């Protein structure tokens, strides 16, 4: 099987053309902030493929390196449970990655469209086992996946399962230090392991195992744990609130009554969600867990999961509206990764200092920071004191992390200075506006440090504002349907019109000045030639 697959790969690599004209785009099936996924027909091989089209002009130099790594990763992998790329090439300023088309889409989209309260344990065990085999292969190869979640587990019409999206996967062997640790923060917050969120110590393969455990809960409950927590009061959240909030409360009640999960399942998840990464099993060991014994085959999934499921294209259309919410979430995380099918769960991000896995209820109990100390300290144990104060939301992790890095840089500069930086760090204790007060109330703070961090905050707020404006414009297009205020929406659309015209004007101006410049060049040429 594996051997065939490899041969397959060799021949396919030769056959898929590196030319956009050989692909006929059929339909958009997924979208994120800098990439779009299409279903397409490759006309030379007459096969249906998925094409991920990434806007390179919107990516920074660092992203660029990641994209390069992703392309390389995908073309060198060869495992039945890992999605590979047939080929990749550039089309103007976009990168096209041509991949096999997984016709049943992502598990997340399957859940969202047909199994909002989770899927049966029989199906889960098959899906997780296949996923785990892919993960074991990646780890063997020295790769971390770093973004394991139902949205990145894809299924084909024959029930085969593949792990996808290496947008953030890191190659351990390439990092400069020999020890297998990474310090960057990537991934999607709900699935992140505590040591990733508190990424002081770096993290390793075991962080993927954590995310795998969260994914197991996601499949069983229909959504990742904690996603039912209250929204923060930020503007961005208000926009999405109207769309989804009530749905979540209802779902939550249903899920709590779900006690059907077997003890094997709970035990397996409990192992993955151990606070101490060293105590979590490896993918290899986890595969031997009793939960994966007597697993049924992939055809079981076809019968039990895929029957009557709407097509990928239809699901994408149905979630088109929710997509706006979902995109906003992606934007806030500044997450370049795209899900194959972005479902309709709007994600709220809040600061959590640790997680306690409650084996009985098979849910994660969040642990919130008690004060500055639990957050600052590297020890997760301190985070174990429960303090479920729902007001402690932070509306975007991005801000928090941005702050953290700024502060830690400054700490280096101010070595020896006894400034109580932690007070600046805790600004994420309560939403944007309050941060200023917190800092202001602290008299012993070095002015430069405060100004520096405030500047950083301002930058990230500007950033957020930009994104909110973008979201507003996205929502605005469909606002007429949902919001009753006709007057408001008219005003909005006028504002948009003005904005559009302004942009056009700017473009024209730019064009004009570039033409003038060209003219000047030509003049220069003429004069210099005539001089001779």
């Amino acid at each position, binding site marked *: 099987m594996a051997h065939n697959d490899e041969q397959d790969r060799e021949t396919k690599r030769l056959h898929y053309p590196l030319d956009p004209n050989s692909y006929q785009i059929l339909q958009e099936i997924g979208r994120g902030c800098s990439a779009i996924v299409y279903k397409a027909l490759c006309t030379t091989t007459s096969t249906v493929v998925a094409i991920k089209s990434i806007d390179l002009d919107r990516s920074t130099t660092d992203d660029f390196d990641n994209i390069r790594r992703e392309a*390389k990763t995908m073309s060198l992998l060869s495992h039945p449970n890992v999605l590979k*790329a047939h080929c990749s090439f550039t089309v103007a300023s976009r990168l096209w990655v041509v991949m096999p088309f997984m016709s049943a889409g992502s598990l997340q989209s399957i859940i969202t469209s047909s199994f909002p309260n989770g899927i049966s344990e029989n199906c889960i065990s098959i899906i997780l086992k296949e996923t785990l085999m892919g993960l074991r292969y990646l780890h063997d190869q020295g790769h971390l996946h770093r973004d394991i979640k139902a949205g990145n587990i894809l299924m084909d019409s024959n029930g085969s399962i593949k792990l996808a999206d290496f947008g953030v996967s890191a190659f351990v062997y390439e990092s400069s230090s020999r020890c297998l640790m990474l310090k960057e923060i990537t991934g999607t917050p709900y699935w992140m392991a505590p040591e990733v969120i508190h990424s002081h110590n770096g993290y390793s393969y075991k962080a993927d195992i954590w995310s795998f455990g969260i994914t197991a809960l996601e499949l069983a409950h229909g959504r990742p744990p904690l996603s039912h927590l209250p929204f923060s009061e930020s503007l961005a959240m208000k926009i999405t609130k109207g769309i989804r909030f009530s749905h979540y409360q209802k779902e939550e009640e249903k899920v709590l009554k779900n006690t059907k999960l077997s003890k094997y399942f709970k035990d397996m998840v409990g192992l993955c969600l151990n606070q101490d990464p060293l105590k979590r099993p490896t993918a290899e060991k986890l595969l031997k867990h009793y939960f994966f014994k007597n697993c049924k085959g992939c055809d079981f999934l076809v019968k039990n999961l895929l029957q009557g499921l709407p097509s990928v294209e239809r699901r994408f259309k149905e979630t088109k509206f929710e997509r706006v919410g979902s995109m906003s979430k992606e934007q806030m995380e500044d997450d370049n990764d795209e899900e194959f099918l972005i479902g309709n769960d709007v994600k709220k991000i809040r600061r959590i200092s640790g997680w306690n896995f409650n084996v009985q209820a098979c849910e994660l109990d969040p642990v919130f920071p008690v004060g500055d100390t639990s957050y600052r300290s590297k020890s997760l144990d301190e985070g174990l004191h429960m303090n479920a104060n729902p007001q402690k939301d932070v509306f975007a992790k991005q801000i928090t992390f941005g702050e953290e890095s700024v502060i830690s840089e400054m700490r280096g500069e101010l070595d020896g200075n006894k400034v109580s930086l932690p007070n600046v760090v805790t600004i994420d204790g309560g939403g944007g506006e309050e941060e200023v007060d917190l800092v202001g109330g602290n008299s012993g703070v070095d002015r430069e440090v405060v100004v520096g961090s405030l500047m950083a905050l301002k*930058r990230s707020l500007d950033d957020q504002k930009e994104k909110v404006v973008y979201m507003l414009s996205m929502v605005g297009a469909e606002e007429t349907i949902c919001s009753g205020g006709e007057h408001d929406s008219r005003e909005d659309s006028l504002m948009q019109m003005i904005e559009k015209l302004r942009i056009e004007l700017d473009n024209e101006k730019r064009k004009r000045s570039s033409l003038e410049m060209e003219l000047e060049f030509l003049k220069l040429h003429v004069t210099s030639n005539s001089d001779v």
Partner: protein
Amino acid sequence: MKGLFKSKPKTPVDLVRQTRDLLIYVDHNPDSRESKREDKFAALSKLLRELKQILYGNSEAEPVSEACAQLTQEFFKENTLRLVIVCLPKLNLEARKDATQIVANLQRQQVQSRLIACDYLEANIDLMDILASGYENPDMALHYGAMLRECIRHQSVARYVLESEHMKKFFDFIQLPNFDIAADAAATFKELLTRHKSTVAEFLSKNYDWFFAEYNSKLLESPNYITRRQAIKLLGDMLLDRSNSAVMTRYASSRDNLRILMNLLRESSKSIQIEAFHVFKLFAANQNKPADIVGILVANRSKLLRLFADFKPDKEDEQFEADKAQVVREIAGLEPRDN
């Protein structure tokens, strides 16, 4: 049956020797019986995997430095690296990847605080020719490319590649249609031109004419967006490096170069514009601007100033603003001179 008499664990030295023997067999017996060959290849793949695990550890255990040192010493005692490189195309994908990672790792291994890989490569420098030519073969490009990039960590090896004929081919490699291969070649190209400062400075001044002629026409004026974007970024990195100041002065005195840079400033892509600015500022800031440079800047003064007026990166950047202010001052204060 074999399981009953489990052999004692092999030492790193044994593993290297067995690998070498198998590689020699594979290299010299292309036509032996099919089944026998497959056995040998399977054994070879297994050995490579074991060697890799010694060097990198696995998800349970960190590598042991003593074992790594023994392995490295035995590896370079004889011609194992040449055998690995030569036989690589005959191995299957997984074995190729393992071998590539082994070779990469060995470049950093020290034996009695010496990088013995470097000594070996200096004595076998022709191996670089095989690795660099790898970009011409889509099946081998990513493996040989990764090995090459690790080998040029050694300054003497990088100098050899810089001064070789391969350097000219990189201008084509980085524009290959396969994105993964082109991107790999671009990473190697960048490494060659930025890693070892003194060697790069020497190379650029010796090869100034052909190198920048190629760089301008093939890369900066390429129809391919990615090529232009990577090239302008790398050009900035090179010219702004203190060790290349002589080259920078020379580059920033050429009217043709200025023309190319001004074209890049007009690109619709913000990323390219910003990177182009970082090179353009060198022309403007040059205190001994040749008359024709001054002429062009004066003639385009109003357009340039207008362009810079609302020209800023997406993320606030104080250094950029300061540079921009200086460039604007320079251009605004220019007086046309007579030839």
